[in-house]
């Protein structure tokens, strides 16, 4: 057992890190559900390409923007609602559309509708000059010394996160591994429920750039990626369901060797 692996707790347990969270009831299942439920959801989806091309261009950056949202904004209007809130954050942070610009435009649109409806009495006579508050956590400061080293990889032909690594993988299929809690706050793809729990490498995936680094603009620091299988009893204890394995894909730098089973 590596030191502290068992005792440690995640540096951050973000609103998005939902695996195993309690308090949720039946899944709102509809086998014939369409991809969009309202016109605004269509428009949000259609804008993704333009927004990310002008703001979050690095792998993991858009996801991290969603993870930084206020929980209300994360949950209130579902998946496309959090995309929209994430768009507003990124466009503001990158200076493409400031949050004051957006507020002003919405007020103009409202006034135009009221004017057309003959309800000029409802148009506010005093226009607020205050900048709307930011409802988002800032990008966490990261110490690059706590990230794995960067290493040169051949430039891929198409835009992709996959990379060829010269160094061989550190772990093999069948190895017992354990992921300690992240050393610092910020973006990670390590789900909280897997932290500190021993699992077994089931398969190797293609190597990828490390989102924990790229989302923070700290280079690719590419990693081998492992599919790690966790027995449900290891994750959830005695009341776990029988005959169940949960597989999580983890970047090499998350993992340490764990003692083998017996």
């Amino acid at each position, binding site marked *: 057992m590596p030191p502290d692996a068992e005792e440690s707790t995640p540096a951050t347990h973000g609103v998005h890190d*939902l*695996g*195993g969270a*309690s*308090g*949720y009831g039946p*899944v*709102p*299942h509809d*086998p014939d*559900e*369409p*991809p*969009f*439920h*309202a*016109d*605004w959801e269509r*428009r949000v*989806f*259609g*804008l993704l*390409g*333009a*927004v990310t091309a002008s703001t979050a261009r690095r792998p993991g950056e858009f*996801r991290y923007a*969603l993870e930084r949202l206020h929980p209300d904004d994360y*949950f209130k209007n*579902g998946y496309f609602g959090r995309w*929209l809130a994430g768009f507003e954050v990124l*466009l503001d942070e990158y200076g493409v*559309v400031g949050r004051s*610009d*957006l507020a002003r435009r*919405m007020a103009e*649109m*409202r006034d135009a*509708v*009221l004017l*057309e409806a003959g309800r000029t009495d409802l148009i506010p006579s005093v226009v607020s000059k205050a900048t709307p508050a930011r409802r988002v956590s800032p990008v966490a400061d990261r110490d690059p010394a706590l990230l794995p080293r960067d290493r040169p990889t051949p430039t891929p032909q198409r835009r*992709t*996160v*996959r990379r060829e690594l010269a160094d061989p993988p550190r772990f093999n299929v069948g190895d017992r591994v354990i992921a300690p809690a992240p050393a610092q706050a910020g973006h990670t793809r390590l*789900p909280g*429920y897997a932290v500190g729990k021993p699992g077994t490498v089931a398969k190797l*995936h*293609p190597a990828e750039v490390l989102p924990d680094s790229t989302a923070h603009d700290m280079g690719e620091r590419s990693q081998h*990626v492992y599919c790690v299988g966790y027995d449900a009893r290891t*994750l*959830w204890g005695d009341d776990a*369901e*029988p*005959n*169940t*394995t*949960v*597989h*999580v*894909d983890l*970047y090499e730098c998350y993992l340490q060797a764990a003692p083998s089973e017996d």
Partner: protein
Amino acid sequence: MHDDHGHGSAHDHYDASSPQIRIEALEDLLVERGIADRERIDATIERFEHDIGPMIGADLVARAWADPSLRTRLLDDADAVVAELGVRGAEIEHIEIKANGPGVHNVVVCTLCSCYPWALLGLPPNWYKSPEYRARMVREPRAVLSEMGLDLEPDTELRVWDSSSETRFLVLPERPAGTEGWPVERLTELVTRDSMIGVARAADPRGQQSGAHEH
């Protein structure tokens, strides 16, 4: 479906928290500033509403049912097969196909966000993106599956795949009995979106009698 946000209705314009008015304002500003293009927005929506959807994955599954050598290659190297079939697009940098079989069932989730093989299944349904599914599918997957209408035997091995890297998963459901000799086009009708996520079995062929012909 509760689509009562009529585009541009006065009601929406009274409420600054309405996503309809926020996205309208944002889209207008981005178009005016040359960041976004309305035709491209419309084309993207159109593509994901009509051209990209579960029928692409269903075709892959039906072909694998009909052709054992394709099935073997698909399970071994899905990326190569998907490329051969000319499937392109977002969210399929690396695909793995997980085959159900006697005593083995697979189901896919993304607990950290809502990763999903867009180019094979289209955009994910809301329930897949719901906190209920994301929270519970790793903690009590058999209970969730049972609520969704799929009861597994206790001795069936259940494999849950949490999509935490850029690998995307698709479940290859078991081919239903009574479909021997069916052509690929007819088999695809049995392959539902739910069955490729792993929350259902493939459709029962007895419910698909229209146009049936004995072989």
